[in-house]
């Protein structure tokens, strides 16, 4: 499903070379829920960005759903992201000037889809996250947990096979964090969605199938859990 082979990411300035990822190999199976942990600045988000085709590796290969993503044009990358990947960010990244329903519709705008189809799918996604009654609200009228649920609805509305979540519970209290985690677990169990989640919260990571620890751009530990 997701395969990273010898992935490196180096940030270069005129005087300094910073290695963010150093020869990363990773295999994530279809339907797996992987959590990635590590201290700040160890390369977790960079890794997630590369997996999500938001950033390019300096070296190595990224293979998603059997397709080797090398030499893809900007347009091809955009289409691949749109069809296959859903993103959830720590700070939600909703567009405050758009209503909840319009935020959720966003990925569908880049597909050849009628207005009604977009609306129906968006309502369906919002129903899954328990926010059907908030479709006409603006993001700033919602709590942090509700905003993150809108972001999840936006991530799943296009029925992607992979969801990448970058500290989805990082800005939430434990109760709301648990609610978000329950939604992700349910998505993984009931719909078989592959999820890769970066987190600082060990208790959340323990609920997933596998935990990988990153330190200074390399793997230092990997644990699988039986639930």
């Amino acid at each position, binding site marked *: 499903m997701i395969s990273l082979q010898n992935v490196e990411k180096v940030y270069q300035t005129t005087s300094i070379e910073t290695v963010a990822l150093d020869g990363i190999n990773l295999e994530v199976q279809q339907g797996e829920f992987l959590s990635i942990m590590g201290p700040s600045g160890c390369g977790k988000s*960079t890794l997630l*960005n590369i997996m*999500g085709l*938001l*950033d390019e590796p300096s070296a190595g290969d990224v293979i998603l759903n059997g397709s080797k993503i090398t030499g893809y044009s*900007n*347009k091809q990358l*955009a*289409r691949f*992201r*749109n*069809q296959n990947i859903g*993103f959830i*960010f720590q*700070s939600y*990244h*909703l*567009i405050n*000037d*758009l*209503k909840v329903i*319009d935020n959720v*519709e*966003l*990925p569908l*705008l*880049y*597909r050849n889809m009628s*207005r009604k189809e977009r609306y129906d799918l968006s309502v369906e996604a919002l129903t899954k996250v328990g926010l059907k009654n908030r479709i006409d609200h*603006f993001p700033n009228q919602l709590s942090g947990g509700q905003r993150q649920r809108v972001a999840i609805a*936006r991530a799943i509305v*296009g029925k992607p096979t992979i969801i990448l979540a970058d500290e989805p519970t990082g800005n939430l209290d434990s109760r709301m964090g648990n609610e978000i985690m329950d939604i992700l677990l349910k998505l993984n169990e009931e719909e078989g969605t592959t999820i890769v989640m970066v987190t600082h919260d060990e208790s959340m990571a323990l609920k997933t199938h596998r935990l990988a620890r990153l330190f200074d751009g390399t793997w230092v530990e990997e644990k699988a859990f039986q639930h």
Partner: protein
Amino acid sequence: MIRLLFKLIWNQRRKHFGIFFEFFFSFLVLFAVFSFGFSYLKQYLSPLGFDYKDIWVVELDWNDTPEEEISETLTLLKNQMLSYGQIETFSFSGKNIPFSTSSAIDEFSTEGEQVDADVFKVDDRFAELFAVNVQEGRWFGEEDAVSTYSPVVLTASMAEQLFGSTAAAIEQQVQLREQTLKVVGVVDNFRYRGEFSRGVGGGNGIFFRKDLDSNPPILMVKVDQEAKASLEATIRQDLRSIAPGWVIETNYLSDLRNKKLRSALVPLAIVLIISGFLLVNVALGLFGLLWQSISKRRGEIGIRKSMGSSNTEITIQLIGEMLVLASFGLIIGLFFAIQFPILNVFGLSSSVYVGAIIAAVASIYLLVILCAYFPSNQASKLPIANALRFE
């Protein structure tokens, strides 16, 4: 997508108030510039109502010549002119000939209407000399010398204003204070002030058949194109021998026209330079505003790209948004602009205002596309991971 663009802009209307105002103001500036320009262009392209080519103008000033000799000398001049085989025609008229600085304006009325009009004192050959087109009735002729009424010929504009149509004017009476005049013909508007003038009341003119023995007249001669050069010296010499004490000045009508055009073009050029400066200001203002507006949205651009939007789609969307923004400003501007043709402000025709509105709208949209393209294109190329950090 378009529905969503309108929704997005509407939701951000308070944030965009400054840009709405900029578009509104820019539209009004462009509307004013185009109205002015089209009005001048329309004037320039409208027919003058006469042909000025190959006409030689001779100004006659009889100085202290005794009155009884003037009429005799004028008759001798006429006979002399008739003797030249290469002259197509000639005519005597008052001072307000085409492209001159002289004018004579008076007030004329019928029972229900009253208008101001340029007054021309002319002879029977005037229409032939200037190839004036007679729309209705006739030009002056010998029969008018013995008529019991004062015959006049009106321009089409004056006939329409006084009688509703050119045809209805024939045989009708017009009052000049106590004097009653009878319309015998209607001719095309006679725009003697030149291409950039609309004339009194939009082209009102009235021609009187006059004996030209009371005021120094102008003699106009239409000559054969080929004979012009050789004939000129001969005519000048003959006129001097017939009227030795008179001051005789000669000119070509086409030279008078060029002089008139030059004097009209100087203020026009100044206005065009100011208009150009305004246009550049509008473009720079829009460019700055759009650059700032788009730069503020790098975070949103990152979100959209992560959701699957390509660079091209981002560029198109941002330009589309700016066009929608412009449309909101234009709607308010159009509300004001449309009042000009409705209320007939400044007496310009509706077509000038409608043309100016279309040109101003098209210019604003073109400016938006040009000004929004560069910042939109730059913003769309931002790496997604970097763009998301701006959120």
